[in-house]
């Protein structure tokens, strides 16, 4: 993310190396301690709540760690081994939850990449009321997951919910158990998430679209390109930096899905829609099996980072 080329003029120093001229700025005249004093408040937070936990978390994962119990025996890599031993309870539970996360990600990411793009393309045209429209699509995003989930659990209620009622009105089945059966629950969770976060991606796309120079379209049209060809040859390449960001953020967001499933389905049916984060919180903070939970979060982290690298490569290769 940090190295994606930024379209705005002022961002030529993204990569962290100031332009040569700046390093010799007169501003370098300051006491040795000054920069550290400026950094200190942030660094205290950073060390205590980011760096230390990363290390401490690994330490926890090497123990059978229930902080309400006096004994926290060291178990080496047993917690990790359990996760990869198909007969163990934590492995079953964990991989089921990873599967749930995977299903949700695979279903939601394509929709969250495509639908907001369509919305952004519409909004990129000039017409009166465009800003109002933009606000309408963005509004749900400012609401928290708790509001969104509580609201949709009501709308998705199998008996008195709006969704089933209107489905019935147009002649579709009106008795779908959106919150307690699969695949309906997945449709519900993905649908709610798209409704909730569509505006976020659309706004970023829109900014990207507006940074594509009009001349490029002009030139394409001169070459006789039709709308679709313009989209493929001008719009998409122009969106590439934004697209890589949106893809990354959307995937990370989807993998971290928690509140929707916690509040709408409660993980039902069975544990089927209980995502990895949900399971980690449940294992660690409800059952206080913190060693297991820490191990799970390390495995999930490795997955996520691998995924990030793959996506990063994917977009870089296309650039080449």
């Amino acid at each position, binding site marked *: 993310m*940090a190295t994606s080329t930024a379209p*705005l*003029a*002022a*961002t030529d120093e*993204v990569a*962290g190396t100031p332009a040569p001229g*700046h390093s010799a*700025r007169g*501003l*370098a005249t*300051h006491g*040795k301690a*000054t*920069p*550290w004093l*400026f950094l200190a*408040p*942030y*660094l205290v*937070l*950073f060390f*205590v*709540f980011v*760096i*230390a936990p990363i290390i401490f*978390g690994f330490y*926890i994962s090497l123990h059978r760690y229930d*902080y309400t119990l006096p004994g926290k025996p060291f178990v080496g890599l047993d917690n990790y081994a359990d996760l990869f031993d198909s007969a163990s309870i934590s492995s079953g539970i964990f991989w089921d939850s990873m599967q749930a996360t995977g299903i949700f990600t695979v279903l939601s990411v394509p929709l969250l990449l495509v639908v907001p793009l369509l919305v952004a393309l519409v909004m*990129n*045209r*000039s*017409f009166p009321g465009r800003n109002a429209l933009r606000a*309408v*699509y963005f*509004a*749900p995003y400012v*609401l928290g*997951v*708790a*509001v969104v989930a*509580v*609201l949709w*659990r009501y709308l998705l*209620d199998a*008996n*008195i919910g709006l969704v089933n*009622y209107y489905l019935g009105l147009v002649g579709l089945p009106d008795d779908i158990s959106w919150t307690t059966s699969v695949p309906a629950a997945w449709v519900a969770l993905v649908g709610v998430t798209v409704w909730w976060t569509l505006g976020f991606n659309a706004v970023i796309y*829109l900014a990207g679209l*507006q940074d594509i120079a*009009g001349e490029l379209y002009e030139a394409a049209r001169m070459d006789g390109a039709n709308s679709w060809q313009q989209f493929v040859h001008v719009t998409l390449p122009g969106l590439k930096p934004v697209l890589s*960001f949106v893809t990354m*953020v959307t995937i990370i967001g989807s*993998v971290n899905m928690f509140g929707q499933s*916690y509040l709408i389905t409660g993980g039902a049916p069975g544990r089927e829609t209980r995502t990895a984060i949900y399971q980690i919180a449940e294992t*660690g*903070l409800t059952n206080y099996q*913190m060693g297991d939970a820490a191990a799970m979060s*390390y495995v999930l*982290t490795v997955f996520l980072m691998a995924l990030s690298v793959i996506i990063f490569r994917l977009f870089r290769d296309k650039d080449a």
Partner: protein
Amino acid sequence: MAAVETPSSQQADRGRGASDAAHRGTTVKADGGPSRGRIVLRYALLILLALVYISPLVFMVVTSFKTRGEASAIPPSWIPNPFTTQAYETIFGAAGTPVLRWFGNSMLAALAHAALVVSTSALAAYALARMEFRGRKIVFGAIVATLFVPPVILIIPNYLIVAELGWLNTLVAVIVPTAASAFGVFFMRQFFLGIPVELEEAARLDGANQWETFVKVVLPLSKAALATLALLSFLTNWNDFLWPIYVLFSPEMQTLPAGLSTLQSANAVRYDLLMAGAVVASVPVLLLFVFLQRYLIEGVARSGLKG
């Protein structure tokens, strides 16, 4: 000045985008263009879609003013009859679900969190943007690297750290641990780098020290960025869900999202109450959104462009 990112240049950017769009718009028309009828049709479609899109929020507000019975009635009604504020009275008065208290907690926590993020990020970012010192690259590298660290890894250890600090069941637990914002530092640093260094040099020549320069010259120039960061931090904290439901125990200590979860489990089918609670949790952010839409949407857009 044109290359400098200040509020005025944002305007310029917007202007550019809009004119591009307008340009394209007219060209489409020149291509043969849609007839008046098709334009009307397109508008109707757009408006219809927008209405459908926003209808759940409307229904949420409508339901919060219904009676218990009407909230679960089929067919659903779009106008409460009778109109009643009973649901609000019930949740405001209930001992187990003190919604007004939650509102205060959320407001306090989100404001404090935003202030903490903005102040710590801005200070750190200024040092990283403008000062030369050994270890700068390492510090910046470490901070940027944590942008890639998924927050899930922090949940369990941070819970134990917070417990050790004696912060469980206090608002400090939802204000402080998430305040070390790598995004904040990154965002502010980008902004500071865009400010022409000459202004600061002039201040230094006038005898101002580093701190005075920062406070008197840099910060006033950075209002837009600071506001955007504050707004995003406020929203994130206001809406945070996973963390508060685990670190806050007692009913009077909940934040609104955590409280909503309590409200839902305590009143599974009392949808009038649930929607009233949801409305209370939505009003401040929707107001912020309406009044500060520009900062917010552009903050998001720019975070995308620069991420």
